[in-house]
C-alpha cells in the first residue's frame, strides 16, 4: 500500500461525509483517504451505502454533510463533469446507438478543455482500446459484444479521460464466474499500468480480498473497518467483519465468563492473547475461524466433538462439528477425509483461529486453547 506521506499524495479525501434522505440516514459520518495509485475496495452487503459513497464522489449524489476533496480540491459544489473522476457502472451504461469507438471517444468530444483535435481524439481512443484489448471491435455496436467486452468498453471510456480517480460500481457482478476471474486480472493489469487511485465497490469478498490494497467494510451505512485484506481476516474489528470476510462463514457463540474469570467452550478453556481481564459473569461472543481449524487424529487436539455434516469443496472438505454445550464449529479436513456424520472428531486450532468479542460485538482479542479438562 502506498504510504500517505503528504497531502499531495492523496487523491480522494472524505472528511466527516454523511448522507441522509430526509430523516433516513443512509450513511453515518465517516473519514476516508485514498492515496494516489491506491486500490481501495468498498465492501458490504446490498443496500449498505457503498454505491452512495461513489455517487457522492462523482457528484451524482449530494453529500448531506462533510467535505469531499478530489486531487486536493474541494468538490462538494463542483458539477460531475468538472470533478476529474471517471466511473464504471455495474450495468456498463454504454450508449447503444454508438459504436465502440464513438463510446470511447465520447468523453473526449465532450471535453471542456480547449477543443481536442480530431487526431488527438483518435489517438487517445486507440490507446484506451489497446489497453483493454478492444482494438478489433472498435466499429461494432455494444449489442454485438459479449458481456466481458462491453465491460471493457466501459473501462476504456473511463481510461480515455485520464481522470484523477476511477470509481467502479460493482463492475464485474454481471459477469459469469469464469469471466469475472479473468476480468479481475485484467482490471489489476490496467490499474498497474495507469496507476491511478481507484475506488471499487463490490459485495464479493473474494474480489475485495484479491484486488484491494485496502478494504473498507461497510454495513447499514456505517464503516465497520478499514484495513488491508490480511488485517480484516486476522483481526476483524467486530463480529460483522468476522462473519462477512472468509468462507465458510465464521460461527459465533455467546459465552458467559465463569466466576474465576475463565472462558470455556465445551471442555476447553481459552487463553486470551492479550492481557485482558474479563469480568466474571460477563457475556462475550467467541468466533472460530473455519479455515484455521483442522480435523486431526491427535488426541491432544484443542477440541473434541461429533461431526454433523460434511461439505465437499474439491480442494478440501468442511465438517460441521458439534463441540458440546451448544457450540459448533466448521472445521477444515482433507478433501477425501473418511469422517462421516456421526463420527467423533478431534479439532486442532491454529493461531488466529479463535476471536473474542464483547457484548456489543467489538473485538477484544484473539485466543487459543489453554487446556482441556477431559
Amino acid at each position: 500500500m502506498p504510504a500517505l506521506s503528504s497531502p499531495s499524495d492523496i487523491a480522494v479525501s472524505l472528511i466527516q461525509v454523511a448522507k441522509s434522505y430526509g430523516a433516513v440516514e443512509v450513511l453515518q459520518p465517516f473519514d476516508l483517504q485514498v492515496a494516489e495509485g491506491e486500490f481501495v475496495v468498498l465492501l458490504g452487503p446490498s443496500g449498505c451505502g457503498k454505491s452512495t459513497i461513489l455517487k457522492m464522489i462523482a457528484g451524482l449524489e449530494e453529500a448531506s454533510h462533510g467535505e469531499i476533496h478530489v486531487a486536493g480540491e474541494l468538490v462538494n459544489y463542483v458539477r460531475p463533469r468538472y470533478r476529474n473522476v471517471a466511473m464504471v457502472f455495474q450495468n456498463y451504461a454504454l450508449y447503444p446507438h454508438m459504436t465502440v469507438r464513438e463510446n470511447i471517444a465520447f468523453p473526449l468530444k465532450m471535453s471542456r478543455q480547449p477543443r481536442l483535435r480530431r487526431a488527438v481524439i483518435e489517438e487517445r481512443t486507440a490507446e484506451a482500446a489497446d489497453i483493454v484489448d478492444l482494438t478489433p471491435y472498435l466499429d461494432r455496436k455494444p449489442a454485438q459484444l459479449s458481456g466481458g467486452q462491453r465491460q471493457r468498453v466501459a473501462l476504456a471510456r473511463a481510461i480515455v479521460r485520464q481522470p484523477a480517480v476511477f470509481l467502479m460500481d460493482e463492475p464485474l457482478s454481471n459477469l459469469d464466474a469464469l469471466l469475472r476471474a479473468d476480468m479481475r486480472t485484467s482490471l489489476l493489469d490496467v490499474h498497474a499500468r495507469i496507476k491511478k487511485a481507484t475506488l471499487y465497490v463490490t459485495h464479493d469478498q473474494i474480489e475485495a480480498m484479491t484486488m484491494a490494497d485496502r478494504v473498507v467494510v461497510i454495513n447499514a451505512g456505517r464503516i465497520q473497518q478499514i484495513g488491508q485484506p490480511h488485517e480484516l481476516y486476522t483481526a476483524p474489528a467486530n463480529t460483522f467483519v468476522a462473519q462477512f470476510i472468509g468462507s465458510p462463514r465464521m460461527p459465533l457463540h455467546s459465552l458467559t465468563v465463569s466466576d474465576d474469570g475463565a472462558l470455556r467452550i465445551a471442555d476447553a478453556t481459552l487463553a486470551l492473547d492479550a492481557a485482558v481481564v474479563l469480568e466474571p459473569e460477563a457475556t462475550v461472543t467467541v468466533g472460530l475461524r473455519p479455515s484455521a481449524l483442522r480435523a486431526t487424529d491427535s488426541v491432544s487436539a484443542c477440541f473434541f466433538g461429533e461431526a454433523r455434516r460434511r461439505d465437499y469443496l474439491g480442494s478440501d472438505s468442511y465438517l460441521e462439528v458439534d463441540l458440546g454445550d451448544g457450540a459448533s464449529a466448521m472445521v477444515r479436513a482433507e478433501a477425501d477425509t473418511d469422517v462421516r456424520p456421526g463420527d467423533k472428531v478431534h479439532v486442532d486450532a491454529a493461531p488466529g483461529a479463535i476471536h473474542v468479542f464483547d457484548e456489543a460485538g467489538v473485538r477484544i482479542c484473539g485466543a487459543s486453547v489453554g487446556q482441556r479438562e477431559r
Partner: protein
Amino acid sequence: MPGTYEDETREVESSGSAARSGLPASRPAIALSYVILLVGVAIALVPFLYVVSTSLKETTSLFSYPPDWIPSPIYWGNFESLFADHPFVWWTFNTLFVAGAVTVLKLWFDTMAGYALAKMEFTGRRGVALLFLLSVAIPISALIIPLFFVVRYLGLLNTYWALILPPLANPLGIFMARSFIVGIPDNLEDSARLDGASEFTIYRKIVLPLIRPGLVVLGMFTFMLQYTSFIWPLIAVQDSERQVLAVGISGLQSAFLQDWGLLSAAMLAAAIPITLVFLLVQKAFVVNDLSGALKE
C-alpha cells in the same frame, strides 16, 4: 425449397408444433380464417375502391344501376377541374407545410418538456405534470372560441401562425415523450454527465437517438392529426388560398349540388401525399432498442 403446398404446410406445421405446444390448425380452420380475413379486407377496401372508381367517372353516370365498378371510358375531367378551377395545389402545400411545421416543433417541444418531467428534479414537477394532464381533459369545442379571440387579438388570423401555434399547446405529446424517456436508465445519463455532457447534450445525443422509434410514432400521429384537422383551420383562416385540404375539400360541396366525382378526385389526390409520407417514414419504425446498453 419444397415447391408444393402440402410440403410447405407440413414444414410450417412441424416447426410450428415444435415451437408451440398447441396442435397444428386443421385445414378447415385455416380456410375459415382466410374467409374471415378476406371479408375484413373487403370491408376496408371497397369504400376506397368505390372512391377511386367514382373519381374516374362523370357524375351523371354515377347513378346507373347496377353500378359500373370499372369506368368506361375513364374520365379525367374531375381531376382536371380540381387542379384548374380550384387552388388544390395551394391547399396541399398549406397542409403539408402546416402539418410538417407542427410536427417538427411539437416533437422538439414535447421531448424537451418530456425530458424535464421524466429526468429532472425540480420543485412542482408533479404539479406541472398534473396541470398538463388536466388540460388534456378540456374538450376542443370549449377552447375554440377563446382561442379565436386570442389569435385575433394577436393579429394572427388568416396566417400560417394561426394554424401552427395552437396545436403546439396540446400536452398529449409531452406525456408520450415522458413515458418514452422514463424508460431510459438513469445510469446512461449519469455516465454522460460524468463524461462531460451538458444537460442539453444528453438530451440531444443520448436521449433523442434512443427514443427514435417512439418519436416516429408520435411524429406520425401528430402529422396525421394535423393533416386531417378541420374545425380550427375552418375558423382561423378565411382566404381560399390559405386553406388546408380538409377545409378546401369540404368547400367543394354546395348546398344544392354534390359533385361526387370531383369530391372523390379530391379525396384521392389528398390521400396521395400522406401515403408517400407513410412509405418514407416506414423505415424509421425499425426498433432501435436499448440492447447492448446495459446488462440484460
